[in-house]
């Protein structure tokens, strides 16, 4: 039973990811995509947590944190790119 609920949750997350993917592809603006991607990352975190429970393993818990980190860094980078066109500045505020 627990497993079934978990599977349902997983499917729900997958559906969410698929929907967000639509947002990523369609846009229309870059920030839309950035947000979509960020949210996909967050959903993936949840999915991995569920899969870990399903597979009865703790091997993937690192992945959760890493995914969080990457989603964060990615979002920052993306937003900087959108905002300033560059990601790493040579000197601050030129």
């Amino acid at each position, binding site marked *: 039973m627990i497993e079934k609920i978990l*599977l349902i949750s*997983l*499917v729900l*997350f*997958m*559906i969410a*990811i*698929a929907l967000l*993917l639509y947002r*990523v*592809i369609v*846009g229309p603006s*870059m920030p839309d*995509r950035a947000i979509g*991607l960020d949210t*996909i*990352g967050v959903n*993936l975190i949840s*999915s*991995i947590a569920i*899969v870990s429970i399903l*597979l009865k*393993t703790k*091997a*993937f818990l*690192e*992945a959760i944190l*890493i*995914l969080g980190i*990457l989603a964060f*860094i*990615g979002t920052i*980078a*993306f937003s900087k*790119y959108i905002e300033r*066109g*560059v*990601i*790493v500045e040579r000197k601050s505020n030129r």
Partner: protein
Amino acid sequence: MIVELAILLPFIMAAVIPFIYRRFKKVHIGWLVLAVPVVLFSILTTYIPRIVNGQTFTKTYEWIPSFNISFTTYLDGLSMIFSLLITGVGSLVILYSIFYLSTKESLHHFYCYLLLFMGAMLGVVFSDHLMVLYAFWELTSVSSFLLIAFWHHRKASRAGARKAMTITVTGGVAMLAGFLTLYTIAGTFSIRELIADVGIIQEHALFIPAMILVLLGAFTKSAQFPFHIWLPDAMEAPTPVSAYLHSATMVKAGIYLVARMSPVFGGHEVWFWAVAGVGIITLFWGSFNAVRQFDLKALLAYSTVSQLGLIMSLFGLGSAAHALGYSQESLLYTQATFAALFHLINHSTFKGALFMMVGIVDHEVGTRDIRRLGGLMALMPFTFSIAVIGSMSMAGLPPFNGFLSKEMFFTATVDILTLNIFSIESFGLLFPVIAWFASVFTFVYSAIIVGRTFFGKLQPERLEKPPHEAPIGMLIPPFILVAVVVGIFFFPNVLGRNILGPAMKSIYPSFPTKELIVDISPWHFNTALLMTIGVIIVGVLLYRSLPKWRAVYQLFSQKYTLNAYYERIIGFSESKSGWFTRLYMNGNLTYYFIYIYVIFVGIVAGYFVLSDAFVWSPAKDSAIEYYEFILLFIMVFAAVALLFTKGRITAVLLNGVLGYSVAFFFVIFRAPDLALTQLVVESVTTALFLLCFKFLPDLTKENISRAVKFSKATISILVGATVTLIGLTVLHYEKFMPISTYFEDSYNLAGGKNIVNTILGDFRAFDTMLEVVVLFIAGLGIYTLIKLKAKKGETDIEN
């Protein structure tokens, strides 16, 4: 010993010459060089008695024993003739060149090439080992190339040298293939052993191909029809070179090969017809074309072609005796070979003299064009007498040696009609007829040489220099040669017994030597003499009426000469190959990928489908969950969307989605390390894409036609299908257990509980080490790529 010395001495000298040349500025370096052939000639002559006694000299030095290639020298009667010619004529030519070439020319090059050539020629005739023979053979091509291109600032010299090299090397390569075929048949490279194994060789299926290939080599070298076209162009060389290469040596190499190989190949119908037939055609074509020439040297070149054809055809006729085996009847045909050897020597003498004569005329008058020459008889009496003797000998008139060999040639062509093998009855009659016509033309061009140069009206205004007699040094060599011409006529049997006889023995090893030697009588009466008289009468008439029938040559349009064909083939192949190469190597990467994928699908999928290897047993698959379907769907969706997306950012994000999905699959498939790595790497890759987008343009719509799109899609689908089909088959290939079960003991073996990581860090740490190196190279490479930019304004020498 003598033979090794004979080969080595010229090479050593050639190597030394460029170095001592600088110290010899004052004296003509030729004097030093002259010593080489003179010494060799005199030593060789001392061997004649022993050769006559039937002795032969062999010696073997190992070169590449692992592959049966050894340096075996062999001195017998046949090589004796050639070596005497090479050194004898060589001496005279070098003597002549000392006066012909001024010290302003780059003599060290000239003599270096000449000595290389001499050594190579001696190597050819002294080698018993086919590979070594081939080596020297190619060396003659190379050194003659250098000699012909000696005045390389002239365009014509370069063109002539290129043609000579291309054609002779082509023949050489064919010959090499022939030699290799012989080796395959007989298992030996030694000519003597080949001759011993004739029985086996002739039975073999590859016998005829081998023969034809070897003949190609001989024909190209000896300028036989239709390969003769290089020889007239090679006349761009300095005259001493022409005299040497084209009278006595280079072109005789092919003759030598035919003579040498006739015990192996002779006696076969194909050999008979090929050698005799090509020879006789060359004889006719050469003499016919010689008549039309205006340049004296070109005339002599064609005459050489024709005379070589004569010798060649004699060898062909003589090979009939091999087929018959030793009998009284076959001795009739050996006479043809005897005549061939005889004419070989005669031709060298008179042609050498004539070349030197032309050289003198050219040197002293400044032109070789017979339209500008005339009336030099009084001004250059000695030259004139050389020309007369040489030409008469060439035309086959008594009392000169050419007469004797020409008579013997006629006799041979007539005699061959009695042969009743090789279906001689159908075409045999052509031999005497063509020979006779060719001799008429020979007579005519011989007359032209003398008549147009020395008789007629002097046209001093059309000459470059005021004509006068040549220095004595230039006259001595041709005089020696004409003396030989006359001498041989009166004492032919000295030559016959001492020189020709042993050579006959080499060609007909199974025949008793005594029977092979023909007693040449200068004074005789037979059919041949009648033919000669006919030649003289018709020849005189034709010479007289030459201006009237010269128009015949106009029938042969310039467009359809062999030369024109050669040029056209070269030009055509260059332009067409260029067109074709540029067609597919168009620099467009997309095309290259298309070729690669098409070949990939064609070969891999082609084989896979044809071999019927496809197996698929989905029943063995592991179970599948719903969410995995969704993930699969997401991936397919993202992949397809990637094809149609218009923005580059979207495209990169979709790629990221693919990467993340792969990472998620790694999670599902129980690969935690992979999932982690994939996640991070994918993010970093995406970030890199974004970083680089600052410098890259947005995606543009590709305006390609529907057909192109369709074909690209087809290729893509085929590639994907190939990968899938093979993959499905591979999935259930269960013949073997994976080696990786071994690694499951990783804790005991390597002290790690993470199997993947112990593999990476211990079992296969070497991969990891190199992978790190790859990463480092990439990082450093990116750094250099960005930092090292081409300087603007600096003209780059590289392109």
